[in-house]
């Protein structure tokens, strides 16, 4: 970085616009700005700091705006601004940085705007200005000259203090010499246990749980597969069994079809047997009725044949049937004895009535049996006639008995015949029962197969679900493998950075101590030397009786030590190692040294020595000094001065910047 110019407007005691052009020559690399006390030397250094970082560190809390300007503003009731612009060269490009703070008049008072405005641009190869977006300006300035390190290059002797007690010296050395880069790298790579680190993030992205889930899913899948195989075997077995029973069913049905005739015969037999029972019952009833009938007129049953025999015998007998029917001889004699007939006729022996009666006696037994036979015949016929229904009924029942007996006999013959036919044939019922049993078994097996199908389906679902889980998580497992590879590289990178940091840190400490001692020896006119500890803190030691002792420091010696340290640091910063690969973490940088009152407290000899060293170390040196200090330095530096300015203090609130030419010297 080389500073080309500084332009200030209304900044503290510098009214209106002032511009300082700095020497950029390598041979005359010093820009000298001389000024008396309170002429604005420190203000100029602070102008750099304010322009770059927006901060200014003044002892008084006065406003940044020039006092005269603020009076003018109030008088004219117009706004104005404080502005500082820097033009610099960095890595071959010319940058323009300007920061302004508007001021306004409010009720007879000049007030700064709440925020300053920063603008930055750079000149492109074709000469065109390219504006840098506002949000990138801060980081661009940091890239050019980090604020943390600025105190070492924008050096305010009064404020810098002792390098030994500076708390940021470690960071400054590390920053300038590249150790911060390695330190940050180590910090960013971190450890697996550190969540906010590269390794921690890789570790956190490992899906270790996913492995377990995948294993579990795989186990479930395998169990389900085993179960499915078992179920399938069972299904196969039961399907075969079912086929067997279906075959058996077909065969049984075939047998039953074959036994249809037997079934018919069986039915016929059963029908005949039922009919036989009915006929036998009927026969028993017929017998009962016959006996009841027979008992009702047994006499006739027995007598009738005799009567018929008697009538047959009497059929040819001479029967005198002149007599009065059913009259007997005793009745006639009684009438004769009474001497009067029942009709009133008097009966007297010999009269006609008597004679008729006597004739009648001739037709009656004992004198005649004709009448008796006639009576017998008549009575027998009546009796026989009266018994006709009895015999008809008896005959009818008897016939019925005979018919039943015949029927029974026929049925028994037929049943015997059917039995004979059915003999040696299978029982239909047995086969029917067998068929029913087979059908039940088929139903049971079919139900079981349904259940097995459901269980197999369930296992398929388990397999499918777990396969998805497995696929998802085995993906995680694959991912883990990939992450592990990244982690291996990160670990290797970490090892390398650790080693490099350790080596570089040691090298830098030794080399810095060497360099600082080199410059210290050039500047200091005594026998002390510098020691740098692990924190890059600088102490002065002296040797007494082969013992090294830390020595007290005067303010002058402090200044010498500070410059020796800064010189060593700047020297190392610009050092470009031949082997770029071995110096990856730092770019060789040319830092300007802008020194405010650098020779304060240093004696004449030390000023002279510092004056010899500084132009050699820094690519650009801007010295803001009092005239008396310059007198000691001039001898060594005058040939190196490319630009010279004088701060012409007009009043406590106004300084003019005057460029000093050859004729003004």
């Amino acid at each position, binding site marked *: 970085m080389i500073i080309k110019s500084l332009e200030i407007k209304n900044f503290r005691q510098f009214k209106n616009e002032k511009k300082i052009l700095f020497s950029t020559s390598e041979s005359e690399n010093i820009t000298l700005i001389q000024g008396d006390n309170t002429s604005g030397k420190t203000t100029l250094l602070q102008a750099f700091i304010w322009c770059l970082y927006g901060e200014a560190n003044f002892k008084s809390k006065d406003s940044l705006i020039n006092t005269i300007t603020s009076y003018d503003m109030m008088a004219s009731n117009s706004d104005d601004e404080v502005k500082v612009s820097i033009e610099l060269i960095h890595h071959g490009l010319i940058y323009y940085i300007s920061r302004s703070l508007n001021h306004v008049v409010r009720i007879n008072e000049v007030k700064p705007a709440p925020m300053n405005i920063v603008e930055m641009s750079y000149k492109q190869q074709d000469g065109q200005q390219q504006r840098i977006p506002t949000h990138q300006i801060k980081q661009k300035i940091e890239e050019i000259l980090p604020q943390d390190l600025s105190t070492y290059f924008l050096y305010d002797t009064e404020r810098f203090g002792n390098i030994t007690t500076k708390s940021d010296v470690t960071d400054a050395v590390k920053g300038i010499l590249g150790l911060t880069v390695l330190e940050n*790298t180590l910090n960013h790579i971190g450890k697996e246990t550190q969540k906010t680190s590269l390794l921690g993030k890789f570790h956190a992205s490992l899906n270790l749980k996913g492995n377990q889930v995948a294993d579990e899913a795989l186990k479930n899948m395998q169990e389900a597969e085993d179960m499915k195989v078992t179920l399938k075997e069972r299904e196969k077995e039961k399907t075969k069994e079912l086929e067997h029973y279906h075959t058996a069913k077909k065969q049984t049905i075939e047998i039953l079809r074959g036994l249809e005739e037997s079934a018919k015969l069986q039915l016929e037999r059963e029908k005949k047997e039922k009919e036989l029972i009915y006929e036998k019952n009927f026969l028993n009833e017929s017998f009962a009725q016959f006996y009841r009938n027979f008992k009702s007129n047994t006499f006739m049953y027995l007598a009738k044949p005799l009567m018929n025999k008697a009538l047959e015998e009497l059929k040819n007998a001479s029967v005198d049937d002149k007599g009065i029917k059913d009259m007997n001889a005793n009745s006639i004699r009684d009438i004769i004895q009474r001497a009067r007939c029942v009709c009133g006729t008097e009966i007297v022996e010999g009269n006609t009535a008597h004679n008729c009666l006597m004739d009648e006696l001739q037709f009656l037994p004992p004198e005649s049996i004709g009448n008796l036979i006639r009576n017998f015949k008549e009575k027998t016929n009546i009796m026989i006639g009266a018994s006709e229904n009895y015999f008809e009924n008896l005959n009818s029942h008897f016939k019925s008995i005979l018919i039943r007996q015949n029927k029974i006999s026929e049925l028994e013959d037929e049943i015997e015949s059917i039995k004979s036919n059915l003999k040696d044939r299978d029982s239909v019922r047995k086969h029917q029962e067998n068929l029913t049993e087979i059908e039940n078994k088929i139903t049971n097996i079919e139900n079981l197969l349904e259940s097995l199908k459901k269980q197999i389906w369930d296992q398929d679902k388990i397999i499918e679900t777990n396969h998805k889980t497995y696929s998802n998580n085995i993906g995680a497992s694959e991912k883990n493998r990939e992450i592990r590879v990244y982690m291996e*590289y990160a670990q290797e990178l970490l090892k390398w950075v650790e080693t490099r940091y350790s080596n570089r840190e040691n090298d830098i400490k030794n080399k810095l101590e060497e360099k600082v001692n080199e410059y210290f020896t050039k500047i200091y006119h005594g026998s002390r030397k510098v020691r740098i500890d692990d924190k890059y803190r600088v102490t002065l030691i002296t040797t007494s009786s082969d013992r090294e002792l830390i020595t007290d420091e005067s303010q002058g010696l402090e200044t010498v030590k500070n410059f020796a340290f800064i010189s060593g640091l700047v020297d190392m910063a610009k050092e470009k190692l031949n082997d770029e690969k071995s110096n*990856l973490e730092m770019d060789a940088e040319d830092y300007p040294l802008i020194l405010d009152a650098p020779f304060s407290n240093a004696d004449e000899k030390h000023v002279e020595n510092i004056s010899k060293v500084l132009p050699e170390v820094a690519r650009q040196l801007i010295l803001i000094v009092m005239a008396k200090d310059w007198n000691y330095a001039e001898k060594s530096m005058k040939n190196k001065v490319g630009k010279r300015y004088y701060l012409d203090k007009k009043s406590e609130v106004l300084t003019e910047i005057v460029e000093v030419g050859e004729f003004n010297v």
Partner: protein
Amino acid sequence: MSSFNTEEFEIDKKKLEIIKYRTIHEEKNNVKTKAKSRDAMIETLRSILIEEVNKKY
């Protein structure tokens, strides 16, 4: 930390060198610019590493 087996895996030294270079380059830029936060830098390093490891030469 993990039982993961990386025995079959071997670091590609060329890739590692490129990762080293790019990592330091990024870190160096960020020291200068302070543009990226810690998280952003870790993410940048992660991207470099993943990109280089997966790069096919």
